[in-house]
């Protein structure tokens, strides 16, 4: 039986020690003491991230069977495969916090969990494979490069591995874009159409504006996040606009202009109504994405059970033999 007062005193001392470690730039490891709230926030953020990687396989997987050259087919398979790996690495990270992948998958499948809004948009042409690699993976890199310095060790280590792979994703995406940009008029039109469609959803990937981001302050304090959504979004725009110009693309934003004084590319207002609508499950493909995940999970149940049953039989016969 615990005495509440002592427990509280203990707790605040522990929190103080914990925050001192964070302030000193130490990384927190699975068995270290951590405030329950920190653990919860991490699980929330990491599982959303992992779900995004896994659901993110679907829009691009949609074009694997139609990739127009063998080289593109292989790059795309390898990229989508990496995303499965990213999901896996991060789920493994949550498992160090005592949360099973299984538990998180259930949350994804029954629609409780969130994932990146961008994957609820359809992929409508081959050019989307270029633009997604360039913009969506590009945005992911901006996010994840910072996350590689997050305070939770297993998350940070997963991010380091992921960032290395994301660079391949972005490069292959931009290469597709550049090739289309140098291609036939039909290819150029296909590319521009995809950029027009994907640009704004890509900007939304950084999440709501800082003023509207309920978890930001706490995440920043504990160095789970190291930069605000708006800072990261601006960084992304600054990096991306020159890349668009380099291949002769027009970005669909009449307000886009370079501000000499700040060195930033100023951009127009994001349609937050659309963003929150997609987040709430009313995006163009939310239902399809969840249905596809559920289908795969249900179709795979007998396979997972069979492997488990076989292992159990093997185990029984080896204990009997022993």
């Amino acid at each position: 039986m615990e005495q509440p007062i002592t427990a509280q005193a203990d707790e605040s001392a522990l929190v103080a020690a914990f925050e001192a470690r964070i302030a000193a730039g130490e990384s927190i490891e699975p068995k270290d003491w951590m405030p329950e709230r920190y653990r919860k926030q991490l699980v929330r953020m990491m599982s959303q991230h992992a779900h995004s990687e896994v659901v993110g396989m679907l829009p691009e997987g949609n074009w694997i069977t139609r990739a127009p050259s063998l080289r593109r087919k292989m790059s795309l398979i390898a990229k989508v495969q990496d995303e499965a790996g990213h999901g896996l690495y991060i789920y493994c990270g949550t498992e160090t916090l005592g949360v099973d992948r299984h538990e998180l998958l259930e949350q994804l499948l029954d629609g409780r969990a969130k994932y990146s809004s961008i994957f609820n948009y359809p992929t409508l042409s081959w050019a989307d494979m270029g633009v997604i690699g360039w913009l969506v993976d590009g945005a992911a890199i901006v996010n994840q490069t910072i996350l590689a310095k997050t305070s939770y060790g297993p998350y940070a280590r997963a991010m380091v591995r992921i960032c290395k792979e994301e660079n391949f994703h972005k490069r292959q995406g931009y290469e597709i874009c550049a090739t289309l940009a140098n291609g036939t008029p039909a290819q150029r039109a296909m590319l521009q159409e995809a950029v027009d469609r994907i640009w704004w959803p890509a900007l939304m990937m950084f999440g709501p504006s800082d003023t509207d981001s309920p978890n930001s302050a706490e995440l920043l304090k504990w160095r789970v996040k190291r930069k605000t959504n708006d800072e990261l979004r601006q960084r992304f725009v600054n990096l991306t606009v020159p890349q668009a110009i380099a291949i002769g693309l027009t970005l669909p934003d009449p307000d886009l202009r370079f501000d000499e004084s700040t060195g930033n590319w100023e951009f127009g207002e994001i349609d937050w109504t659309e963003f929150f609508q997609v987040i709430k499950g009313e995006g163009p493909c939310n239902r399809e994405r969840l249905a596809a995940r559920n289908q795969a999970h249900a179709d795979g149940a007998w396979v997972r059970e069979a492997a488990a049953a076989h292992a159990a039989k093997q185990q029984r016969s080896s204990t009997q033999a022993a």
Partner: protein
Amino acid sequence: MSTTDTTPRYEGQLPADGLTVTGATQWPLWEVFTQAGKGAPHEHAGSVHATDAEHAMQNARDVYARRGEAVSLWVVPATAIVASAPGDAGPFFDPGNDKAYRHPQFYKVPRGVRVF
């Protein structure tokens, strides 16, 4: 008081070997160690789920060695790993910190002796 149990958890009670599986829920976790080159140490790379050692090995290969990151792999049931507790950190490791005489720099070499 907040407790953070960070031991990997599985559905149901596990026997000591930690390998009993319930396929309906989740396969057991295996820790993966990769050796980057011949002669290098095996280092922790991450983990995979698998029902048995052969599949754990195959999954480890596909997940952690598909870019040629490894020349050798170890897979270990996560439950078989015994980790030092953070509470032990002081008694376990601090005493190693002030034993300067264990390091070569502690000892003086007479002037003029160049290569040592």
